[in-house]
């Protein structure tokens, strides 16, 4: 079981209500994926820009790590978990 680095810019539909950002869906290349669960979240505040990280489970069953950069308001798919 290992994290495979993706580091891809992605388009995300997210909920920003209540002062908290929660990703709902994202598009990775031709794939449109629905987020069925946010497994955990954390914020890296090293430096002046906060980066919000999310471990999510997509409807495909895969576990991804997504990153939202609060500085330039961009999303990236950082890595995906592979079995084996």
């Amino acid at each position, binding site marked *: *079981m290992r994290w495979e680095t993706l580091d891809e810019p992605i388009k995300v539909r997210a909920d920003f209500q209540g002062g908290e950002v929660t990703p709902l869906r994202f598009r990775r290349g031709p794939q449109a994926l629905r987020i069925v669960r946010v497994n955990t979240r954390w914020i*890296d*505040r090293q*430096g002046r820009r906060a980066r919000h990280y999310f471990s999510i489970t997509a409807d495909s069953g895969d576990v991804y790590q997504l990153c939202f950069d609060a500085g330039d308001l961009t999303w990236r798919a950082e890595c995906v978990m592979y079995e084996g």
Partner: protein
Amino acid sequence: MESGMRDVRGMKTTAAGPRALSAGPPWGAHPAVLHLDIDAFFAAVEQLRNPALRGRPVVVGSGVVASASYEARRYGIRAGTPLHAVARLCPQAVVVAGHAPTYRAFAERVFALAAELAPQVETYLDDALLDLTGTERLHGHLIRAAAGLQRRIRAETGLGVALGMGTNRMVARMVTRLAKPGGFAWLRPGGEAAFVARRPVGELPGIGPRRERLLHEMGITTVAELRAFTPAQLRDLFGEVGLLLAARARGEETRAVAPREVPHSIRRETSYDEAQTDTTALEGMLHYLAERAAAQARRVGVVPGLVRVHLRWSDGARVARGMPLARADLSTAALYGAARRLLQMLRTRRRGIRNFGLELSELELAGRPQLGLFDAASAGEAQRAATAPGRVPITAEARLDRVADELRERFGFRALVRGASLELLERLPSDAHGFVLRTPCLTR
């Protein structure tokens, strides 16, 4: 969790929830130190990140175990166990390389919640000491307030923490051992000497494996047996630290809880699967480690007085050498120059290197350059202000480092790779935090 709460003086366990918790009388004016320890920290974070790991034996580390989940500990796996032994002890264990920046972010969140409760918080990698003395009027009953913190940490981060409370930091730490995993134990004021007396002598801070072995050979296994020695005898046995041990054996500890402004040292190191002999690759790595160490020093706001390079040869032999640094020069270039000379001096054998790194020590708070009152101040004025007595002068290299820090802050470490580190581009994978190293200790 609440079922693990107990008053260690009476060894009483309550199975009731927090509302029915028998917390006893208020703590009052006695010193109150709360020790917070994150359970199986790195492994717990990995189980949060990947739901498939929950309930399974998880080991985080590379070469040796840095953290093992409680499921893995049932098989005798502990921090420091070599990974080849993990495969033998628990073949189904999942081994994860680990990711220090993620763990740091989780720890910062836990410590931020702790700081909302305590005016003084002293933090370490995965544990913290909170001074709650005199805060009972603010928080209400301290035992309940601490239990509330424990629940909040669980709710907001998903992490379990063990808590121990006592009248001093030593007792609080010792009590936490009884509360792991995920429990809360406390020792009421006045019970310190009796509690400490029952503990194994190796649990006393200041008694490491060597001293413990010596004491065991003398037939001393508990702190009560250690107390048979007078302070003078302990000093004869262990030197000046013997006097400290005599006080600790009575449950006394006077060191206050205080946030550390200046760390003891800053270390960056790596290891290789196969012994490295290529000078270019070694110097590239040394440059990268120097950049990371220097950036950390700037972030913390300290200047080092000494740089030390250490390495382990392929036959396991270790060598190290240090060199004083001019405190005024914070630049990566100066640090790398010194470290490179040290590495050259150390490489006296025709052998590969398995592990090496550098350490900055004798750290002092940096004098911050005085900013101009008005933005229109000329560069010359700014330079004069920066070189005023007591200020660290800003060299061209230091300015360059600052720009590099800002660029990396904004665009990630890979946005700017420079100097000898360029050599690593073709050799190592990288992510937004930098090159992915094979680091035996995730704290570095």
